[in-house]
């Protein structure tokens, strides 16, 4: 063999066309994981306002909840968290070697369940908190 052709970037992109259920589950799990890590920091920042007194904390929460964008983001956060939990359970079963032949179905099930829970939560979140 004198020479060989390295398909480089084009091949790196073409790799993403091979998607099947398991691949999507992996991608979503990584993505939601990173989103949750990011959220953790804002969560700590908001909680730490309680250090300077109860009223400070309450006004912060009220201020945040009065913004529509925050309430919408909360719905997104719930979606991310619920999917991460459900797919995490799915991965637990995969690691235990249980139901491997139904791994795609369990992925779809976790997607649907996430959708249902998120839709059901929309009225509650958009109504906001009244303290």
């Amino acid at each position: 063999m004198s020479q060989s052709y390295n398909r480089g970037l084009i091949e790196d992109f073409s790799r993403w066309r091979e998607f099947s259920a398991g691949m999507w589950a992996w991608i979503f799990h990584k993505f939601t994981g990173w989103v949750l890590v990011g959220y953790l920091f804002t969560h700590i920042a908001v909680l730490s306002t309680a250090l300077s007194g109860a009223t400070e904390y309450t006004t912060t929460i009220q201020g945040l909840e009065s913004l529509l964008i925050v309430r919408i983001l909360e719905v997104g956060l719930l979606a991310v968290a619920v999917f991460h939990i459900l797919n995490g359970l799915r991965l637990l079963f995969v690691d235990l070697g249980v139901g491997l032949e139904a791994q795609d179905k369990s992925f779809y099930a976790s997607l649907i369940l996430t959708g249902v829970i998120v839709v059901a939560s929309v009225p509650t979140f958009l109504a906001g908190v009244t303290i």
Partner: protein
Amino acid sequence: MSTQVPEQVEDESASETVSTGKQKRDAKKRERAERVQEQREVEAAEKARTADDTYHLKVFRYDPEVPEKQEPRFDDFYVPYKQGMTILDALMWARDHYDSSLTFRHSCRQAICGSDALFVNGSQRLGCKTQLSDLSEPVRVEPLPHADVVKDLVVDMEHFYDQMEAVEPYFQTNSLPDGELEEQRQTRENREKVKMSTRCIWCSACMSSCNIAAGDNEYLGPAAINKAYRFAMDEREGEDMKQRRLEILEQEHGVWRCQTQFSCTEVCPKDIPLTEHIQELKREAIKNNLKFW
């Protein structure tokens, strides 16, 4: 005799006695024949393109030794469909009728040699096991992803074979039977356990589909781990050997790289539950290291 064109050409070069008139006539005849032939080819190509029972194949072409083919391209082939035609059949037909330089590996044509794993319509498949009728047109045939292309559809398998060799894919044991002619019997249950893993044909479809293997060149890959599973789970090899095999597998680039994307299991032409085997070896490795009992 005068209709045999090639012989006349020989005659012309051999002797000067042929009259110039005859030469002219022959030249004209040849020209006409060539024209007719050309027209026929064009017609045939046109017919193939428009016919209902042909399949349109787009085949990846690359050849480092031909300047025109150094830049990869896709060639279109229109192959007349016969019932039961596979990708491999279509490629062979295209090679025999259109372009004899079309290069691809194939041998047994019955899904046991593992030579013709190809990337067909965005998924790794065995050419000889994939029915044309199952695919949507145009059928895109590419060499296996995540491997260097040597020529056309031929990829460099060296790395894959290295990974396979790394897990010592052969039977080894310290406990030989006493009698010289005594066989090393395996229990039926144990045979059932390793049955699926023995079916591997080293086609590299799983390795090519694995995203982790694509990003990490040192990762053993599904095929090699499955091979290791076949022997690690074989009770006849004994505890020492199993220990040795697990030590190979539980290294940084061994079983723990698998992130259960199930791509390998989806593409395996022999339906080996690769992910299941990798997961079982993970559990074996943990049990082996914990040993509370």
